[in-house]
């Protein structure tokens, strides 16, 4: 099991104060099918770097009852994801 970095499309809301809130992530699985997952809750938001490379605004989210780290890096989103396959 290892962590890797993946850039993904995200549907987000910019509220009237200018704060950005990610709502859904769009995940493409191995068969190439795209699925929309709702972000159930944002646990916290802070500036941080990622172990898999890159830095930016970190949103710790609950997605399908799992904790995931979603980063907004400059102008795009990436997520730290877990793979069981070895490189």
């Amino acid at each position, binding site marked *: 099991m290892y962590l890797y970095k993946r850039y993904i499309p995200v549907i987000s809301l910019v509220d009237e104060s200018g704060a950005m809130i990610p709502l859904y992530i769009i995940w493409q699985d191995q068969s190439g099918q795209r699925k929309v997952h709702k972000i159930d809750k944002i646990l916290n938001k802070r500036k941080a770097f990622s172990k898999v*490379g890159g830095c930016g605004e970190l949103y710790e989210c609950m997605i399908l009852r799992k904790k995931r780290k979603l980063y907004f890096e400059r102008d795009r989103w990436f997520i730290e994801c877990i793979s069981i396959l070895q490189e």
Partner: protein
Amino acid sequence: MRWKRYIIHADLNHCYAQIEEMLDPRLRTIPMAVGGDETKRHGIILAKNDKARAFGVRTGESLREALRKCPKLYIVKACYDKYLYYTSAVKSIYRNYSDRVESFGLDEAWIDISDSFRLFGDPLALAKRIQDEVFVKLGLTVSMGVSFNKIFAKLGSDMDKEKGFVIISPTNYKEMIYRRPIGDLLYVGEATKRKLNLAGIFTIGDLAALEPFDIEKRFGKNGVMLWRFARGYDESEVERQDHKRDVKSLSNGITAVRDLETFDDVKMILSVLAQSLASRLRDIKKEGKVVTLMIRDSDLNWSSRQMKLPFSTDIETDILKAALKLAEKSMPYDHFNHFKKRYRSLTLKIADLKERSAYSEYDLFGLTAAKEKERSLEMAIDEIHRRFGFDKCQRLLTKMDKELTDFNPKGEHVIHPESWF
């Protein structure tokens, strides 16, 4: 005891390489360097990581040379836009704690936190906090020197390159730095070092022990300045963030895509460089008087020649004329306009700048009206470049070899190291 001032010098350790490593941690495990573009022949190493350093790869050498030392070296193409973004992110963290943040190049900065203690408490703890915050938020390590003047702070940050934190206080500075070689002092380069060594000055302590009067006799004004640095008398302020250094010279240079063989090649390149210089001069509303041409031949030797114009100018034709005169003098050629040597890169510089005055001081018999006409023509061309693109309006001369003149020195982002003076 409280010090008079608390100044941090923060240095992003091998800046470009570290940013690339942060973005892709796999690069940490292999020898890696950030370099220019080999195909366009700006192929030099701009930064390297520790694994590459172990192979003897040095900053500034050509990619080919580096690859010979370390064939497995992985070269990342430099992307200035990225480095600008992350280095300014680092500086905005500094600015959370002080209004006095003075940049020294992209990766270095002085921060004056003498007055921040009322808000943030103990200055030394605050310095540590800033260092940690940069790491937590951006994943970048900075090495810091904390001292009571800018010079010692800079010395401190250079002592330990791996996220170092060196404190040079008014009580311990003599033990800390007096035994260090004189070359460590800011503004002691190779030439100055040789000169000082000849006079028997090998360490910073040696210099500090001398009498200023003797130094002035021997090394002049700058010698005294260095002596003040060594004694810790430097009082220069860390500039506020909105402070802009006065521009003293402008330069543009290019390493050509192929070696320059004839005088026509040089003419073409100089016309593009002169155009950019003149346009940049007009942008900052200044005029220059001294034109310098720096040439590098295919053996990588630099030579330069300069001349003073009878008047200050911001007009392309004037600069180009002067540059061509210099080129004719310094690049020997035969009857067929072929050079006796081959040349690799040209840099054109204009110095002795001053504000453009409302009235012009052209020479007595010069044609002021004609010059003014020329100037407005060039400004119109600037406007065309701005609105429709750089390639839309060019001298016919440059069409003789499109490949050679296919560069835009004004538009391309070039970063030069900064100077103290």
